[in-house]
């Protein structure tokens, strides 16, 4: 028997390390079971997760495990009587979260030990590399990727083969293959999961790419906020070097390529490929003008190819299974699978990998289980700060680059933030614009000042100080920034604003004209009062109120002084009679 603990960052955050230590503490010498760890399986809503294996067979998946469960787990592992952990075993319904997915990029995540080259090799690891290096020409590799229809998973969805081919065509002795692991979208974490949980698949995918374009060095630009990913990747690189999978004369084929990690300081703009290159060169992360494209003049002015983690994670699978198998999934113009990071007001949040062509409803309701607390679905923000929101009416939109773009949103890197009726869409737009305005590198006028001005307008709207004409002014600024900004960050920054205006204009108007927030989220626009018929005079709210805004005699209806009230909502949560009215 084997106890395997899911110890990706999210598992650790939920308490997986404590579980690990608790189990370890109970273990004596010569236990009849082993204790191991794996990466992220992607079921955030069930963390910490512990799997019980018999050989390669998964006996039980235990969820929301706490250190208190350690004794039962150890007992079950010792005795083989897994009924001892029935109470924490995953439900059949929750199992569907995974069974309804089709995993390619995440194929090993949560299943293998991330820092075990043997585990990876057992799972067919490095077979694709061997196949490519020994049986295929670089052109054939590119052709296979072309057949697969793989497109950049970082956001833009540019055909991967085209970039590879362009870099291949650029004549130079020195070429670079760069992996963009900056993953700046605050709602996305699939790249982190891949590096943490399956670092060798990234190395293998990159090696195949390096071989295809003729690169001599591979660089992974990963954000410093991902320490576990960096650690696991460092270990994997060391293992690969030792196993002659990296370095000189790889696998005896004559192909040589080295690899290194560059930790980025976490500027969102460094996810933009030319800014990333500047940062790699040790300069301030600011985008360059294109052309010249990186395939012509990239890192150190040499031809460079940049793909993101998820893109590379698909490559070995494609070489192993053939481009056609990949292309068999998806739609006319979007092939294969896509990983989404499902978060927000969703019942089951986590990483979801599904074939292109499924609908948003399939993801949000079919896999995610719908909205938490039985609330009404309002919209989903696709593509993070660069993306847009998609409202309820468009839930049946097919997951496809073009279809999503038609809604005003983007596929993006796969962030999917679900919002319910209690989310203010103006506030939501402001949230993302606050982010992009802060993350603007400051180089071009449109982005530096344009986003700041939009942010100021949104701020005054949510404060109830919006003016007639503000919506139109926002729209004008949005169009100008989209048209005039230098790089993707600025060009896409208006998307959350434009889509919320497009689908929820009435909410903007309510804020500006009636000084009301329909979702009751903008505190400056709320008034708290007490329904005298419902108030029992229990005094609890008055005691809880940090502003001392509530007064009244015992067993008499209380009142809130709205001039003193700071609209913190403490009274609402403390009242047992539902007497607090928020308007």
């Amino acid at each position, binding site marked *: 028997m084997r106890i395997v603990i899911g110890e990706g960052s999210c598992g650790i955050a939920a308490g997986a390390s404590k579980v690990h230590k608790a189990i370890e503490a109970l273990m004596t010498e010569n236990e009849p079971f082993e204790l191991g760890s794996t990466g992220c399986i992607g079921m955030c809503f069930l963390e910490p997760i512990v799997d019980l294996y018999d050989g390669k067979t998964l006996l039980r998946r235990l969820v929301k495990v706490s250190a208190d469960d350690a004794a039962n787990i150890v007992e079950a592992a010792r005795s083989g009587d897994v009924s001892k952990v029935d109470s924490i075993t995953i439900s059949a319904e929750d199992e569907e979260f995974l069974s309804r997915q089709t995993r390619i990029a995440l194929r090993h995540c949560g299943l293998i030990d991330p820092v075990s080259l043997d585990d990876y090799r057992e799972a067919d690891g490095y077979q694709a590399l061997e196949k490519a290096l020994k049986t295929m020409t670089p052109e054939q590799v590119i052709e296979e990727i072309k057949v697969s229809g793989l497109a950049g998973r970082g956001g833009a969805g540019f055909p991967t083969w085209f970039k590879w081919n362009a870099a291949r065509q650029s004549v130079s002795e020195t070429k670079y293959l760069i992996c963009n692991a900056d993953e700046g979208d605050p709602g996305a974490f699939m790249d982190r999961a891949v590096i943490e949980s399956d670092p060798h698949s990234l190395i293998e995918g990159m090696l195949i790419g390096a071989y295809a374009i003729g690169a001599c060095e591979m660089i992974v630009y990963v954000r410093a906020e991902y320490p576990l990913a960096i650690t696991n990747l460092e270990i994997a690189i060391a293992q690969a070097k030792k196993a002659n999978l990296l370095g000189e004369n790889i696998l005896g084929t004559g192909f040589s390529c080295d690899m290194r990690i560059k930790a980025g300081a976490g*500027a969102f703009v460094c996810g933009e490929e030319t800014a990333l290159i500047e940062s790699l060169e040790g300069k*301030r992360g*600011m985008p360059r*003008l294109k*052309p010249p494209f990186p395939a012509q003049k990239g890192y150190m002015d040499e031809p460079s190819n940049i793909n993101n983690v998820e893109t590379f994670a698909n490559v070995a699978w494609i070489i192993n299974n053939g481009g056609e198998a990949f292309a068999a999934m998806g739609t006319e113009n979007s092939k294969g699978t896509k990983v989404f990071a499902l978060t927000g007001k969703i019942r089951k949040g986590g990483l979801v990998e599904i074939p292109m062509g499924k609908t948003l409803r399939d993801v949000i309701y079919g896999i995610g289980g719908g909205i938490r607390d039985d609330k009404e679905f309002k919209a989903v923000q696709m593509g993070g700060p660069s993306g847009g929101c998609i409202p309820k009416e468009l839930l049946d939109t097919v997951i496809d680059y073009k279809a999503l773009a038609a809604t005003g949103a983007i596929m993006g890197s796969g962030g999917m933030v679900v919002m319910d009726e209690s989310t203010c869409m103006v506030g939501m737009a402001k949230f993302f614009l606050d982010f992009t*305005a*802060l*993350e*603007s*590198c*400051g*180089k*071009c*006028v*449109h982005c*530096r*000042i*344009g*986003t*700041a*001005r939009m942010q*100021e307008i949104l701020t005054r709207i949510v404060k109830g100080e919006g003016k007639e004409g503000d919506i139109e*002014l926002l729209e*004008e*600024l949005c169009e*100008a920034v989209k*048209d*005039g900004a*230098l790089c993707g960050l600025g060009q896409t920054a208006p998307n959350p604003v434009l889509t919320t205006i497009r689908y929820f204009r009435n909410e903007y108007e309510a804020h500006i004209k009636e000084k009301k927030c329909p979702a009751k989220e903008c505190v400056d626009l709320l008034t708290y009062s007490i329904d005298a018929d419902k108030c029992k005079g229990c005094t609890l709210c008055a005691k809880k109120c940090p502003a001392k805004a509530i007064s009244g005699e015992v067993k008499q209806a209380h009142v809130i002084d709205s001039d003193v009230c700071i609209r913190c909502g403490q009274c609402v949560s403390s009242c047992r009679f539902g007497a607090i009215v928020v308007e």
Partner: protein
Amino acid sequence: MEQIRITVNGREMVGEKGETVLNIAARNGIEIPNLCYNGKLKLYGACGLCLVEAENSPKLMRACATVAQDGMVLSTNTPRVKKARKIALELIMSDHSGDCVAPCSLNCPAHTDIQGYLKAIANGDDKEAVKIIKEKIPIPASIGRVCPHPCESNCRRRLVEEPLSVAYLKAFAADNDLASDAPYTAAPEEASGKKVAVIGGGPAGLTAAYYLCLSGHAVTVYEAMPEMGGMLRYGIPEYRLPKAVLAKEVAAIEKLGVEMKNNVKVGKDISFEEIKNGADAVLVTIGAWKGSSIGCVGEDLEGVLSGIDFLREVNMGNRPEIGKNVTVVGGGNTAMDACRTAIRCGAENVYVIYRRTRAEAPAEDIEIEEAIEEGVEFLFLTNPAEIIGENGKVSSIKLQVMQLGEPDASGRRKPVPVEGEFRTLDVDTVISAIGQKCAPSGLEEIELTRWGTIVAAKSTCLTNVEGVFAAGDATNNGASIAIDAIAEANEAARAINAYLLGMPMDFPEPYYSKKDVTAEMLADREKKARAVMSVKSPEYRRNNFDEVLNGFTEEQAREEAKRCLECGCHDFKECKLIRYANDEPIAPERLSGAIHESFKETRLVTIERDQGKCILCNLCVRTCKEDVGASILGLVGRGFKTVIKPEFEGTDKIEICKTCGKCVEVCPTGALKLLK
């Protein structure tokens, strides 16, 4: 080099392969606006002004960074391009905090370059000062004495201690220049062959005549009175503006080539038709020479006269019989001129009747002060109720006592009668100085407002009659201060010149960047009191018309001029940003929000950098790095808060700075300044 052909704005042009669109267009005479481009440096593409539209391309392109391809068809002035450029400029200007022009100049109706001439005076170069002043005011010695100087009311030095004595400094420089061996004279342009007739030789007429003459046109001024100068000659008393000073300035204009015809009244001595037929353009600057009536019983009695009639009589050398007791009605500068003139004419008791209080009186406070010194008695909060006469002649005046009520539309508290309270004064003369009216005659074709003033279009000064323009007190809102008339005359001269050359006459209001400055921002300035000009004693003044002011001493004037804070931008004339901002109308106010505060970086020792004016084009940073190879400057911070500072905020790098000044040279605005 391989050649390529592109089309810009419908014009085919040839470029070399690899050249940018911006360069090819520039070489062929089409300037595509840009603020961050410099041919010596690597492409940057930040300002977004050079956006152009290419045929068959959905996106706008940055001309500075677009390598021209053979056969490209581009436009730099389509509505889409203009819109994009406009909003880019508005965004830049919304975070550009600086004063293009100093507030004194902005608030001078004629927008005289005050900072410029004060600097010249401070440097002891009065001729240069006069040259600068005469770009707007051809009669500075006169105007310097009489102007109520809105410039001083807006001088930022008042936030330190007191405003500069701008008007008197102007008079000082002009007096010195007039007294010099070779007073400043501008040179007229080559004769245009066009003729302009100016009707009325007051400040407006003289000003327009001067500038039209300088533009090469043949100008004739027709003046109804025996001498030129209008109200400056016949309204302002000698003790404020010695007529000899005015005469010198008039003579200088005549010497320039302006033909002056005195004692010619249009409609009487010559017909308007005749004047029109004899000129290519006519400017009407007849002023407002009729006093407004008091509007109470008895105003037709003998001994009731208007302030301007009284002043004109005195200024013509006559001494009207006014008796011992004189009452002047009104609280403006004309009332002050009248009461002080009455004192000088021998009246024993001179009263000023004003229905509000001293605080509301439109007269300059110094005028009230000096009048009191000379013995004038002010009866504030009184209003004439009735002028009482004996045998058809004024004997006394009944005054209604007033009090201040609610503020009126102008914001001043409205005077209301105190029911039943009156007082009576025995008087020999009542002088009404409560306003002036325009009374045009002989100009019947010209459309008038319902107040009897001439309807003249804003900016062009055009009347309803083809080729006839009007300016000054005679137009629109009527009488105002001399500098207003001069300002309008400047506009009229500009419009007439354009009209004569067949050019568009409408000149849009220029756009200026302005900054809000508080006293705290100037807290570090050394305090230096305003120069006080010595005046003749009240006792001396009462019985003669000698000039009250003694003038500044040389030392006083130079020191006073040095008090100027130089609020206007040193780079205004070369600034690319403001030039583009004036190409098409922009409205950055609609985008107003946070700004980069005007922090002055002085660590570079000899180079001062004003953060408020910096537009982050990064040219200084790039020049220092790529051209000079020093890399002293760098960008610090992110997003809107990005600023340029010595790189990594260190001090060690600053020591490398050799003050080569290249960063200052490339700065497209006035953010960088060499201190020397």
